[in-house]
């Protein structure tokens, strides 16, 4: 058997791929579901924290900064493992899916809070003063004047950070989430052949290349 044949036999084995592609597709579905949940809840929580921080209540802000720094410092896998293996000891038993969702949502919350906050503080003081001088209240000014401008400048960094964190869904395979990598790994151990990993990589590309291209477009459009 030549080198090329051995290579295709190992990584592009048609028989193995034919048998396991439905699993990979189902993994793709799980990854999309997990990613969507992380993006929506992580960004919502991040924005909520940034808005809360803008009220300037000192104790609250210390808390926010502590939480944000914590989840920016910890490796995401460590958070997943802590939640999945740690919480059961206090009788909370999250599934691998929920552990991964929670962990990555917390990480995205932390990073996006910093990005939203940077956006809010980048808006000149004169915008606040003009709005307040016409009688708008603090929250009205934030909602109608500050946030619409702040969100616009946060879109490029936010898109990049969101993509980076969403790819972390692959970490779910460690805690038995049947997302793309999880499905591919078990297919590999069942078939004694790594070809499902090739399929898995292809599935990630199908999912993330459009997202990355979208991110590039967003960056150009909003710069």
């Amino acid at each position, binding site marked *: 058997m030549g080198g090329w044949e051995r290579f295709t036999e190992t990584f592009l084995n048609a028989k193995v791929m034919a048998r396991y592609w439905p699993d990979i597709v189902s993994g793709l579905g799980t990854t999309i579901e997990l990613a969507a949940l992380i993006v929506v809840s992580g960004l919502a929580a991040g924005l909520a924290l940034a808005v809360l921080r803008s009220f300037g209540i000192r104790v609250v802000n210390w808390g926010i900064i502590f939480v944000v720094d914590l989840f920016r410092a910890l490796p995401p896998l460590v958070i997943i493992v802590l939640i999945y293996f740690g919480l059961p000891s206090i009788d909370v038993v999250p599934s691998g899916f929920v552990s991964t969702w929670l962990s990555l949502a917390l990480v995205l919350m932390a990073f996006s809070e910093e990005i939203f906050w940077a956006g809010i503080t980048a808006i*000149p003081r*004169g*915008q606040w*003063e*003009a*709005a*307040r*001088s*016409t*009688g*708008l*209240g603090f929250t*009205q000014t934030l909602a*109608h*004047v500050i946030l*619409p*401008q702040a969100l*616009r400048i946060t879109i490029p960094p936010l898109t990049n950070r969101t993509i980076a964190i969403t790819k972390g869904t692959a970490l779910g395979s460690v805690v038995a989430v049947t997302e793309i990598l999880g499905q591919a790994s078990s297919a590999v151990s069942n078939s004694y052949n790594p070809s499902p990993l090739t399929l898995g990589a292809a599935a990630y590309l199908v999912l993330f290349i459009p997202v990355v291209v979208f991110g590039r477009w967003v960056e150009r459009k909003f710069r």
Partner: protein
Amino acid sequence: MIQAKGIHKQFGALHVLKGVDLDVAERELVFIIGPSGSGKSTMLRCLNRLEVPTSGSVVVDGIDLLDPRTDLNHARQRIGMVFQSFNLYPHMTALGNVTLALRKVAGKSRAEADEIGHAALARVGLAERADHRPGQLSGGQQQRVAIARAIALEPRVMLFDEPTSALDPELVGSVLGVMRALRESGMTMVVVSHEMGFARAAADRVMFMDDGLIVEQGPPAQIFEAPLHARTRGFISQIQRH
């Protein structure tokens, strides 16, 4: 219309206002001059509580601005302010800038607010620019939109903080023209500016501020031609040389 008494303002150790009294009658135009850093902006900002005085009292149109029970957002609708740097909302059209507070503070419907907004823009000569964003307008036009944003709320007093200082010379006239018209309509105005021509033509009283105090005040002719204090004389000859 405005009674400000004994205003002191400190930023930490920096004593910016050192006991300023300012009384402005209804329909009066008071013009404030003074060197950079003398506290003119801070004084003006105390009159709508963008700045809270360290001590003193500020009453505008019978409302005590320093009383904690005062509904500040309500009071501020009656006190229009125009800034040196316009501070228009860049993400909104000219009309959007003018109508935001009408809808959110004055509680007008969108249709009502738009009608008032169009009328305010017409008053500053920008009826045709209602759908333009600030970025598509010249500095003079932006400042006139800012004036429209304030007058749309039908304020009792208008405060101007160097409204023409950021403008190219050829655009100054259009803004001063709007201010003249506003003055002729009977608006009570406090104007911080160095436009001596405007002061001569429109001001009832000129105040010279230096180092956190009002050094002297009087009719424009007196302050410009025969100031009593050496500091006033020095300042006026300095800005006339420009």
